[in-house]
């Protein structure tokens, strides 16, 4: 990777993390989503087709990664930017399944670094409350942005940008040693492919645990499943069908409720 690519990707690692300067809506929930993150990395590294393919796989795997009650299960921003960049750097000469497996492994490494940094930044944020308390005592409404925005962002930036630069630089250095595909034995890449394909079940399994609210919901899930396996529909076709079914469902339950109201 070129230096400007490393700097740009590291910058996006920071922007896509929780509580970056662009806010959670644009940051964590948009730039931090694997699909978008991979696309951004693809643009920076000039290979967005492979990147989007990786992005789809990582997005499926991390689909269940939402943040209920502020508990961060996994630092997505780190995981996906590093994972995609790593797979693009080392994945030359490997087939799709193996590149995805590689991305999963690098995302794991990135996520681990992210997790450590997340804890460090939390610890560093603690003194900020005291500074804010001081300004509040003095009634300084104009200075309230200093502890929250300036200092908070500096800590967030340092904890994300610097480690990301280090990780990406060492990846670049390692890739200069030779072609990854020819260096590692075949069984490793095979295992990577198997692992990558199975990891998709993680995201799907977690997301259905949010969606299964009633016992019969598993049947609706199976309906979507067999539309692909038995009827050979594409996921896009199923999505369109699902929207139609959802609208009909909404109309029928609301009109049922209206009828019930009339009877009473």
């Amino acid at each position: 990777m070129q230096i400007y690519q490393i700097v740009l990707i590291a910058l996006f690692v920071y922007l896509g993390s929780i509580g970056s300067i662009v806010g959670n809506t644009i940051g964590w929930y948009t730039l931090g989503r694997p699909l978008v993150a991979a696309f951004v990395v693809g643009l920076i590294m000039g290979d967005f087709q492979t990147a989007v393919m990786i992005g789809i796989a990582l997005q499926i795997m991390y689909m269940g990664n939402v943040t209920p009650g502020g508990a961060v299960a996994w630092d997505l921003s780190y995981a996906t930017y590093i994972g995609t960049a790593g797979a693009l750097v080392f994945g030359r000469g490997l087939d799709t399944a193996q590149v995805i497996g590689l991305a999963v492994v690098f995302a794991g490494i990135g996520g681990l670094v992210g997790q450590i940094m997340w804890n460090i930044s939390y610890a560093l944020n603690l003194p900020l409350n005291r500074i804010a308390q001081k300004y509040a005592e003095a009634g300084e409404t104009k200075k309230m942005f200093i502890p929250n925005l300036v200092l908070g962002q500096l800590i967030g930036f340092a904890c994300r940008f610097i480690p990301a630069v280090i990780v990406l630089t060492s990846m670049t250095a390692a890739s200069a040693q030779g072609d990854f595909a020819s260096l590692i034995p075949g069984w490793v890449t095979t295992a990577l492919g198997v692992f990558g394909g199975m990891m998709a079940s993680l995201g799907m399994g977690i997301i259905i645990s949010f969606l299964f609210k009633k016992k019969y919901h598993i049947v609706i899930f199976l309906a979507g499943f067999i539309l692909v396996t038995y009827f050979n529909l594409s996921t896009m076709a199923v999505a369109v069908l699902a929207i139609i079914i959802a609208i009909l469902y909404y109309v029928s339950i609301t009109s049922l409720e209206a009828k019930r109201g009339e009877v009473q």
Partner: protein
Amino acid sequence: MLGLAFGQSMAPVIDELYDTKEEKSEALKRHITLFNTEAQVGSICNGIVCGLEEANANGNCTPDLISSVKVALIGPTSAIGDSLWVATFIPILLTICLSISQASLATGWLGPVLYMLVYPIGTFMLSWYLFKLGYKSGIEGMQTFMSTGKLNYLTDTMTVLGLIVVGALTASFVTLKLPIQIVRDVYDAAAGQVLENQVIFDADKVVNSIFPNILPLLLTLAVYYLYSKKKWSPLKLMGLIFVFACVLTFIGYATGVYV
């Protein structure tokens, strides 16, 4: 947590409403205490508190009431925000964008770009609407918003939509092969010769002829079971999948599926 951010967001309002330094200080201190919510749907809290602070400045409300309302808002707003917006809307929007990207690699950029437009714009509109709702109709406004059955119907509908799409995604993205086969030399009586290395038994084919993609389905349901019923962490699940993948690769090499 969001204590500091809430304080900062209230600073301009407090500056506007109160005149003396003491009053400003009191008000600011109220708003940098512990606070947490889902920050996007939580804009309704800012709206409600703005309204209350205004009432307080005019002498119609007490600081204690403001603080207790704020604490009371934490639970319901984060519950709605997390379950409806974060855990339902985001995955559904993502799955639709994923499907668009997957349809053709040449137009793969369409999915992420669509998400980058729809999600922030939609969220800003929602946040702004909820902020105004909170400011105008206060705590009663939120109660009516939550108690009309509409919200429940909307969640139910989103769930149905989500389940179908997630089912389809599971079928097309989770891959799991049973790499067991038996290879023998077979004597072909019709041709009168020995055919070498014929696959006479392929476990994966047999399993899939019963129910296509049953193994990925079972794996996904197993993950669901371990995560939601046995409370396994995602990291632990990842480790289990990794071990499984290694074992399957080994079996595959041993029976000659992978070469």
